[in-house]
C-alpha cells in the first residue's frame, strides 16, 4: 500500500495554488543495488487532478521525475471549499488517490 500524498491547496486571489507531494521510489530501471543487481523500473506514469469534480490536470511522467515527486500547478475559476482529488497510477498498476479542500 502506497503512503498517502500531501496536498496543499490555497486560493491566491482568483487562482488556486495546488501543490502535492507523493511518496514513490521512481526507480529508473538503471540503478544497481549494493549487490550489483539492476533495480527494475518502478515509476508513476499517470497523474490526474480534479477540482470540484472537473478534470484540470492530466499528466504523464517518466522515471526522470525525482523520487518522491513534487508537483505544483494553478487553477482559475475555482473557489475555497472546492475539493481537490489527485490520483496517480504507476507502471506496476499500483495507484493512490487522496483529496484536500481548497483553503
Amino acid at each position, binding site marked *: 500500500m502506497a503512503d498517502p500524498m*500531501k496536498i496543499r491547496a490555497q486560493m491566491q486571489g482568483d487562482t488556486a495554488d495546488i501543490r502535492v507531494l507523493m511518496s514513490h521510489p521512481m526507480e529508473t530501471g538503471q540503478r544497481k543495488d549494493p549487490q550489483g543487481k539492476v533495480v527494475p523500473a518502478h515509476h508513476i506514469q499517470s497523474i490526474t487532478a480534479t477540482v470540484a469534480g472537473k478534470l484540470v490536470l492530466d499528466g504523464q511522467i517518466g522515471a526522470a521525475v525525482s523520487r*518522491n515527486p513534487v508537483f505544483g500547478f494553478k487553477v482559475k475559476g475555482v473557489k475555497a471549499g472546492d475539493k481537490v482529488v489527485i490520483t496517480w497510477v504507476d507502471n506496476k498498476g499500483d495507484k493512490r488517490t487522496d483529496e484536500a479542500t481548497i483553503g
Partner: protein
Amino acid sequence: MKQRLSTLMAAAVMTAAFAVQAQQPMKKAPPPAKAAAPAKAKDGITAEFEKFREVLEEDNPAELFEAKGEDIWKHKKGPDGASMAQCDLGLGAGVVKGAYVQMPRYFADVGQVMDAERRIVHCMVKYLGYKEEDIRKQPFSNDSKTPDHVSVITYVAAQSRNMKIAVPQKHPKEIETFRIGREIFDYRAGPYDFSCATCHGSDGMRIRTQDLPNLRKPAEAIRAYQGWPGYRMTGGFMLTQQWRMNDCFRQQRFPEPAYLSDSITALLTYMTATANGQVYKGPGIKR
C-alpha cells in the same frame, strides 16, 4: 605506544615554551609567490543554490516521513498495549512539542545524557516492542528503506519547528558531556590527521561547493543543526543527526563510531548547546 609516550614527554616539556607564545600562528614561508587568482566562482554558485533552496524547502518530501512518524507515535501499540504516550522526551510523558530542541539532556531514569535519536529509539524499544538489535542492523535509511525510528525522529523534530534551541546545561553530567564533546571535536587522528575542526573550526570555508559552518560559534553552529533530520536529495530518503556524525567520521578517515554511542551523544551535546538560543526551522532538505 612507545612513540606516543615519548611524544607526550615532548609535549610536557615544551608546554613551558608554549605558554609564552601560544597564540602565535605558525608561519612557514613557502617559495615566494603572489596571491593566486581570486576564488570568484564561489559567491556565484552559493547564490545560485540559495535562490532555489527556498523552492526546495517549501515543498519538502520530509513531510511524507513526518506524517508516517506521527502515525507511529500516535497509533502504534507495543505488545503490552503500551504506546509512545508513555515516552518522556524530557518534558513529561507523551510531550512532543518542543522536546527535540531541548535534547541532548540528562534522563534520570537511565542515569545518562541522551540525544534525541537515542532517546526515541530507547522509547520505541521500551514501549513499542522494537528490537534494538534490529534497529542497529539498519540504523540509517538507504535507497530501499527509511526505518520507522527515522520517521518518528522526523515527526518529533517537526514538532519543534520554529522553536529556540535550549539544551540544558545544568546537571553535572550535561556539563561533562558538553566538555567531552568539545574535546572530540578538536581531536586530530587517523591517516589524514583530520579532526572535526579541520573543516568546521573556522569561518567561511567550503568543501567543493558545500559550505562548512564554523561549529564553535552559535550563529554558525545552528547552520549545522539546521535541516536535520534532512531529506537527502541523492537517494530520496531521510537522514538523521546520528547519520551526519557517522558520515563525517567516515570522511574524516576514522573508524566507525557505534550507533547511539556516548561519543556521538557528547559531540551532539557540544554542537547543539553551542547553538542554544538559535531558532530551529524543522526537518530540512539536503543535497
